[in-house]
């Protein structure tokens, strides 16, 4: 027994009494400056120390032989050294900056984003729905950002001198072919998709990644919610209709269903409208999102259907009794995507979307039926090498089948259409040279079977941090896009239009205040030209058009200076001319405003449990042609101005009353003029101004969220 005790005592002694070895050295950054406060220790032991003001550390250890010395410090990459303890003397350890940290440079040229799917966060999802003029439409909210033009009678996004169809919309990286609701002529449209399905929205007004093609001017990327947080039922009763939604969550799966019905008949019977409605706008829409979380990935299936109907008689200078316009639109959209991790360093994203759109227009004596079937399939792989270098490559396929059936009693009927297939692939890398300098470069190749032509588009952007809060970036890119359905249906041989973007960006970001200024130049080539008043069956088409757009966009946002207040200012200067369509010469197109200015203010009043929002837009006049004077697009309208207000009042945490008025001051905005086809007696072409159906718009809604816990609300939906 004694022997055991002796042995154990000896053992104890040998452990506690072993001799100590000293370890010391310096920890420096790449510029050989000391890093103060780094944690230095031997892996698997408690021995360690911290660096002092000179970057020096020293500590003693009882460990012997080969050991791992760990040096870690926030916003630097952790370093491990394997050495014999006896050799750990006067060490000099250099740490590399971690380019993933918050203050690292970001590639930001051209991009505006909401949500935190990107470091360039300038708009959050909630902002979209609390912007006074937006009425819950993400598209309208992004119209308060610089780089967009105010084309009030259209409602779509016009980016940097581009037409509306030059900006493409993607849901979870997959293309949306028909993103806008069908409307009558001269009536602004809205986006089809409700904002509360999305958790992040990124809007890029140029110079975007090689991942996105078939877009000349801009991309809007919408990402659906990955994981709903609560089971709930949402009910909304509005002055224009009603909406019901429900979310169910099972362990790894969830399902959200939403149904809305809109009918403008009651509204039109109360408020004055310049149109004469035979059948006021009526729409039924439904959407479902199914999500399934797998061990290494996430599957999302999104399906949306909507049907809209309307019939209206609109004023026309050439027809004293007005023009009758009837519309029936059915739209189906499916989007399935899978995102997952393949191995430690490889990840995959793949998806497919299918669109079916059926539009029947009944216009005076003509019946026009358009049927579109479009499909987009995509796969993308990403390889992670380190925080400093990532590489991605992908391939995609677009196909559109379009058919138009034109029937008229007086003019020859026709059936036209086309089948368009495009295959594309791209490769791109992100490289951080340091925390201050980053490069993104990629190459995109496309082949179009209609044109029998392959093309290569390089894209690159370089960002450099000039000060603690400021950075500059440059971006260059080649972009191309096939001719739109409007022309391809009449002529299948038209080649793609193309453009180059050159962008210089300065960004300053400090504690909730963001300043962005961006200078850009764009050249357009191979734009469509035709020889008739409108594109007709039998017109002569070519791609000899061209144009340019140069400008400056400025954005300022501040949510810290004034308590409970968030505001942003946007200013865009745009100089753009084109010779395309049926233009007689190079001229400023009628969708271009030289100056655009927007202010958006949101203020939360705690005592009233209310959020008040204001937004104001000013845009300089747009061009139109006065046939009584010489020249083409020779006149400009008076400037556009509109002040909108909204008020969200929380009755309880789950009941919200919402009120919104667009163009509160009732300013009469003239979008352009229509001239008579033939001059009157004294030889003058008579005209009428193109006015919106109503100057102002009112909206009242009551939203109620029913959830088990009673803590959720629809504030995000407004």
């Amino acid at each position: 027994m004694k022997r055991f005790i002796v042995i154990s005592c000896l053992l104890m002694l040998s452990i506690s009494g072993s001799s100590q070895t000293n370890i010391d050295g310096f920890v420096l950054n790449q510029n050989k400056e000391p890093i103060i406060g780094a944690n230095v220790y031997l892996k698997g032991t408690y021995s360690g120390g911290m660096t002092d003001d000179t970057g020096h550390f020293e500590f003693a250890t009882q460990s012997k032989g080969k050991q791992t010395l760990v040096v870690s410090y926030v916003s630097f990459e952790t370093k491990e050294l394997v050495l014999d303890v006896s050799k750990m003397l006067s060490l000099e350890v250099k740490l590399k900056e971690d380019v993933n940290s918050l203050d690292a440079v970001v590639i930001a040229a051209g991009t505006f984003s909401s949500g935190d799917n990107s470091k360039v966060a300038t708009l959050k999802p909630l902002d979209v729905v609390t912007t006074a003029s937006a009425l819950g439409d993400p598209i309208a909210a992004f119209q308060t950002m610089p780089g967009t033009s105010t084309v009030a009678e259209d409602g779509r996004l016009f980016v940097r001198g581009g037409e509306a169809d030059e900006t493409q919309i993607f849901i979870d990286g997959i293309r949306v072919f028909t993103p806008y609701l069908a409307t009558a002529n001269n009536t602004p449209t809205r986006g089809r998709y409700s904002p509360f399905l999305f958790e992040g929205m990124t809007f890029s007004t140029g110079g975007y990644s090689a991942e996105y093609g078939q877009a000349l001017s801009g991309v809007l990327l919408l990402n659906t919610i990955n994981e709903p947080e609560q089971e709930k039922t949402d009910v909304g009763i509005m002055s224009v209709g009603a909406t019901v939604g429900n979310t169910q969550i099972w362990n790894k799966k969830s399902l959200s269903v939403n149904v809305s019905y809109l009918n403008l008949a009651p509204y039109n019977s109360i408020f004055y409208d310049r149109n004469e409605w035979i059948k006021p706008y009526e729409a039924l829409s439904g959407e479902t999102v199914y999500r399934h979380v797998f061990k290494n990935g996430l599957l999302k299936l999104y399906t949306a259907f909507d049907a809209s109907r309307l019939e209206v008689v609109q004023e026309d200078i050439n027809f004293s009794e007005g023009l009758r316009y009837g519309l029936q639109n059915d739209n189906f959209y499916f989007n399935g995507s899978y995102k997952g991790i393949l191995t430690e360093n490889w990840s995959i994203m793949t998806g497919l979307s299918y669109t079916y759109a059926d539009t029947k227009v009944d216009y005076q004596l003509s019946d026009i039926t358009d049927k579109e079937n479009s499909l987009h399939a995509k796969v993308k792989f990403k390889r992670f090498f380190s925080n400093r270098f990532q590489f991605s490559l992908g391939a995609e396929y677009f196909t559109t089948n379009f058919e138009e059936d034109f029937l008229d009693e007086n003019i020859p009927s026709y059936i036209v259409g086309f089948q368009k297939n495009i295959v594309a692939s791209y490769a791109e890398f992100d490289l951080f040279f340091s925390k201050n300098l980053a490069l993104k470069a990629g190459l995109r190749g496309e082949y179009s079977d209609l044109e029998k032509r392959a093309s290569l588009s390089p894209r690159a952007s370089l960002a450099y941090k000039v000060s603690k809060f400021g950075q500059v970036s440059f971006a260059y890119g080649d972009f191309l896009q096939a001719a739109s359905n409007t022309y391809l249906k009449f002529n299948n041989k038209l080649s793609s239009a193309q453009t180059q973007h050159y962008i210089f960006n300065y960004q300053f970001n400090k504690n909730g205040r963001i300043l962005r200024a961006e200078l850009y130049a764009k050249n357009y080539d191979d734009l469509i030209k035709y020889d008739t008043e409108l594109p007709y069956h039998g017109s002569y088409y070519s791609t000899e058009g061209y144009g340019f757009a140069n400008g400056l966009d400025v954005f300022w946002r501040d949510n810290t200076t004034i308590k409970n207040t968030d505001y942003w200012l946007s200013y865009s200067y745009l100089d753009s001319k084109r010779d395309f369509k049926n233009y007689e010469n190079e001229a400023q197109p009628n969708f271009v405003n030289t100056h655009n200015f927007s202010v958006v203010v949101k203020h939360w009043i705690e005592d009233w449990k209310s959020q008040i929002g204001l937004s104001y837009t000013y845009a300089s006049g747009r061009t139109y042609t006065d046939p009584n004077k010489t020249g083409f697009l020779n006149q400009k309208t008076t400037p556009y101005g509109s002040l909108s207000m909204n008020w969200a009042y929380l009755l309880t945490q789950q009941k919200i009353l919402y009120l919104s008025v667009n163009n509160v001051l009732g300013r009469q905005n003239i979008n352009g003029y229509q001239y008579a086809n033939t001059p009157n007696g004294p030889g003058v072409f008579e005209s009428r101004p193109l006015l919106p159906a109503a100057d102002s718009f009112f909206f009242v809604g009551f939203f109620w969220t029913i959830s088990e816990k009673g803590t959720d609300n629809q504030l995000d939906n407004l």
Partner: protein
Amino acid sequence: MRNIITILIFSVSLTISSQTNYHEGMQQAFGLWGQQKNTEAVHMFERIANAEQTNWVPYYYAAQVEVTSSFGEKDVTVLDANLKKGQLYLDKAMTISKDNPELLVLQALLYTAWVAYDGATYGRKYSKKINKLYEKAEKIAPENPRAAYCHAEWNIGAAKFFGNDIQPFVKDLEKSLDLFATFELPSPFYPNWGEERAKVLLESYKS
């Protein structure tokens, strides 16, 4: 036989010495924390955690130091750095111990630090997540006083913000005190905070 006993004693003495090391190391780290030497304390906890590969407790405290010091921080870059560090330690603790109520509560507190910094911005982003975390923690461990107390405090804050009645949550707070009274620490250095603050809070709502 003798050899076996020798080995036994040897291994027992080793565990004793390593447990003593752990005990001393933790004490030392708490000492540093008490002296407001936060960085040193975090470093010490990190080292202990690195040596004790299967023990979530040192990582818990490393994260807790970062989270606690973030409340009241006005500089967003400092706040972001602290909470990112805290999240890193918390993630490591969670890989060691899954569905641990103490870690769920700390995760909720980490989000709450963002809400405390800017309620208008981060309240909407995190409030649902915070609720979900507390609900989960209470479901797993109905006897855990910190889950009950922190959830009650969070609900009181939210009810005040929306102008709702706080009384049901004050009752929850009261119940958490009963849990504190009966809660037994499963292991040394197991999280054991909150009772004092819960009492102070309750007093302030009662008077």
